[in-house]
């Protein structure tokens, strides 16, 4: 693309960056729809297991196959997950809701309609704050509004294997989804990508989804067009909807490509946005191009109708407050608290909270220790390295947060030196033994007993009269040498500060 945006040629007007492209100025307008599969035990409307994969067409029943006469029954857990997700994204959750049918024909759609929510979505009016800053910078937050979140069943999967036939796997048919619809608040491909990252982080945090992008647990559609300013006149380019992107990179690349394409198209044919006009596109990752799938001419009339097999239902205050309580602490809140409570840097906080399990592991270690900052250092500098190097998870470790707490305390209490702590760490990682046991087992406990160290100091002094003579002549630097001898004789276990103090004290007394 011919975008010549430079940082100094970029103005912020109403929160949206204005770019220049030759004689044109333009702003980018992006709204996203994210489909996210939920981690409920069963499918949305039947008791089939909700799990990815399996032999094709083995996790199916008359309901999710849409056999004649079968009827959907809403899983309570599904509605609960939807409500929890809604609260996590700061939405209002409706106490009265219903389902509708959306009709279209496709082989992977078993009933000729999808059960969804049309005019009474479960959740409305939410938002997330996306962070436009780099992870080592102070956060620069932007609010992206969420228009609605509704419940919707997933469809089967078409498999186009070589040969004359296509195959369909209905294991995914009826898997519970939420569709999150944003307002068109994003003004760059990066923001769109950050939006999806943010949603994914939050929904994974609250356990609503595994967010597994490769398995299609989350897919994003981006609606994108441009506000072009030419000689002071404003134009809107036609909206493109890029469907089914399942990586952050795909969102960035597809939107970036589409901006260039829309600018080119605007220069070529001047086509502008008209109400109801939308081109549906796919993103061809290999070619790096958006591909037109459908234009207005092949417009689908979804013929929405109330789902008569599911009674409209109310959600009790108890149900809703339980859902609200299940949200727990969200990533941003946790980050704020870690900064405040533990005095950690933004970078450290971001690293520690990137994964909920890690954050909780750290926090348990911090709570077990007398110095949370030191606990953070162990986790960040040592533990994460080990996890990466060995490609294992926290659950694979033989140590618990309590090990780190105990190790930190041993150093803080002066029981061992920092150097010794490293050895203890290495050993406990392999054996899973508690630091106390390791320290005792090796007799490496630091000696802080004054009478023991005094004995060693006396012995060293009596063996080195020359050094005493030097000291008396005013050569105070022998203190260091004598202390070194004391440490050596104690096999490094003497508390170095105490040893130095005692050496000086004894010399002064002589």
């Amino acid at each position, binding site marked *: 693309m011919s975008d010549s945006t430079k940082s100094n040629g970029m103005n912020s007007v109403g929160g949206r960056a204005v770019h220049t492209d030759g004689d044109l100025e333009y702003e980018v307008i992006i709204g996203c729809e994210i489909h996210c599969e939920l981690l409920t035990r069963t499918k949305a409307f039947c008791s089939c297991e909700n799990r990815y994969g399996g032999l094709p067409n083995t996790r199916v029943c008359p309901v999710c196959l849409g056999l*004649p*006469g079968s009827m959907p029954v809403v899983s309570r857990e599904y509605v609960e997950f939807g409500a929890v997700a809604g609260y996590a994204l700061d939405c209002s959750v409706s106490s009265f809701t219903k389902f509708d049918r959306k009709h279209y024909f496709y082989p992977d759609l078993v009933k000729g309609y999808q059960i969804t929510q049309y005019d009474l979505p479960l959740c409305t009016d939410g938002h997330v704050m996306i962070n436009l800053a780099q992870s080592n910078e102070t956060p620069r937050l932007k609010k992206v509004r969420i228009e609605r979140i509704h419940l919707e069943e997933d469809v089967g999967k078409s498999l186009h294997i070589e040969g004359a036939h296509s195959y369909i796997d209905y294991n995914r048919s009826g898997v519970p989804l939420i569709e999150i619809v944003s307002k068109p608040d994003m003004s760059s491909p990066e923001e769109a990508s950050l939006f999806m990252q943010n949603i994914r982080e939050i929904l994974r945090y609250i356990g609503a989804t595994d967010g597994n992008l490769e398995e299609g647990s989350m897919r994003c559609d981006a609606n994108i067009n441009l506000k072009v300013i030419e000689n002071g006149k404003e134009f809107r380019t036609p909206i493109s909807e890029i469907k089914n992107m399942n990586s952050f990179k795909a969102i960035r690349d597809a939107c970036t490509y589409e901006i260039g394409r829309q600018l080119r198209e605007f220069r070529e044919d001047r086509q502008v946005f008209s109400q109801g006009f939308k081109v549906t596109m796919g993103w061809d990752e290999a070619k790096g191009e958006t591909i037109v799938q459908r234009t207005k001419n092949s417009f689908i009339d979804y*013929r929405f109708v109330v789902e008569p*097999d599911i009674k409209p239902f109310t959600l009790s205050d108890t149900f809703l407050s339980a859902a609200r309580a299940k949200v727990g602490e969200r990533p941003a809140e946790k980050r704020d608290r870690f900064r405040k409570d533990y005095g950690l840097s933004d970078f450290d906080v971001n690293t520690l909270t990137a994964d909920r399990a890690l954050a909780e592991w750290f926090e348990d270690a911090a709570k077990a220790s007398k110095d949370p900052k030191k606990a953070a250092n162990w986790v960040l500098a040592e533990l994460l390295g080990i996890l990466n190097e060995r490609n294992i998870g926290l659950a694979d470790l033989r140590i618990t947060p309590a090990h780190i707490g105990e190790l930190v305390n041993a150093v803080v209490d002066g029981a061992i030196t920092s150097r010794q702590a490293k050895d203890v760490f290495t050993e406990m990682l392999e054996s899973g033994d508690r630091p106390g046991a390791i320290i005792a087992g090796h007799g490496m406990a630091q000696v802080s007993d004054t009478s023991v160290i005094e004995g060693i100091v006396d012995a060293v002094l009596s063996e080195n009269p020359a050094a005493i003579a030097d000291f008396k002549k005013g050569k105070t630097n022998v203190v260091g040498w004598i202390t070194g001898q004391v440490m050596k004789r104690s096999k490094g276990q003497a508390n170095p500060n105490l040893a130095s103090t005692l050496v000086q004290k004894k010399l002064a007394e002589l």
Partner: protein
Amino acid sequence: MNICDLSLVELKTKLESGELTSLAIVQAYRAAWEADNLTEKPLKGYIEFYPDAEDAAREADAARAGGDRRPLLGLPFAVKDNISIKGKSCTCGSNILSGYIAPYSATVTGRLMAAGAVPLGRTNMDEFAMGSSTEYSSYGPSRNPVDRNLTPGGSSGGSAAVVAGGQAPFALGTETGGSVRLPASYCGIYGLKPTYGTLSRSGVVAFGSSLDQVGLFSRKVDDIGLALSVMAGKDAHDDTSADLDLSSLAHLEPAQIKGMKIALPKQFVEAKGLDPEIAAIFEKACAWFRENGASVETVSIPVLEASIGCYYVIALSEAASNLSRFDGIRYGLRKDPGQGYDELYVATRSDGFGPEVKRRIVIGNYVLSTHFSGECYKKGMSVRARIQKDIAEVFGSYDLLLCPTSPTVAFPLGSKVDDPLAMYLSDLYTTFVNLARIPSLSVPMGETKAGLPVGVQICGAQFAEEKILKVAKAWEVSR
């Protein structure tokens, strides 16, 4: 004793006393069906008389010998071709479901069989229950046992024909707008449309889901009570099923008519199109209620005038939606021109559906299209809400609502088949019941001079099945 003349309850007594075996009963019905098939104008109520019906009967007899005392053990029933029985064909009288074998049983048939009942066979119907004569069946029409040149009514015409024609003591049908009561009236038997939710719809192929309900046919009112007593109640597979216990209906006492308040809807009983002979029979029925101490009053329910229009808007919208799943991809008929799935859909649905079903799918989709931006359907829903409210109010002041089941008697085969509007008007007096979700029993209350049966429907408030059946019982014992 002709086994085929006995009611379900009479058969039950004879099975329990050991006077009859289930096998003998099933064999008698098969013989009646086979003999009828050899006549010049066979009833053609059954699409299929199950080849293994006797096996189930033998099992029931063996179970009884082993001390089994389930309430319907060994009792036979026929089932409309749109209600699933595991391992049996279920085609809805349609080509598009040819070859489809149900892999699971509907809750209603499952509960009947769990109570020991034996399915005899599946019965003919208008394709996907869309029609009032059974003529829109891909298997060809059924005949009316009273006069074989007439239709038995529809859409559950096959079920009505086998019960009235002595080929089954009891049968299941389905209703969306009168498909049980109309054929019951035309064939001179009882036909109950229960309250929406009394019976589970799971396994019953949907037509208009917010209106559909399984119905029951019998020659004696007790039989309906007995069957309902095991079929009703909450079903985990149907969210719209009601949590209720109708086990007390296994034994019906006649109702005390004295003191009852009965409403006659002015819009129907004073209507111009009402056959004078039917009006006279209806008047006699009203007189019987008066003589027995009930007060009978004509009430005006203006919204009833809108019921048939409202019904078709809602029923056809839902039908268009429900029938979307028949696409040739997973089961039933597939016509594949080999040009991709769009062409496969068009070829399959063009060949698979008959003209009446196509007409209704087209109308239903038109109603739901952006052309109306859903307004037509919404308006239908709001009229329906009004009907529900106004009818509920009537039952605030009255025990029952009485009106003829149909403005006409059974009509000759072929007479309306090319006039869909005339066919739609057969449902004039019945659709409000489905819209209002109330129960209604068509009771055979007389005959015209030509000997054609006339049904009168006794409607009650939601879940007033027991009251309705007991009133019908009082009428029956007074004959």
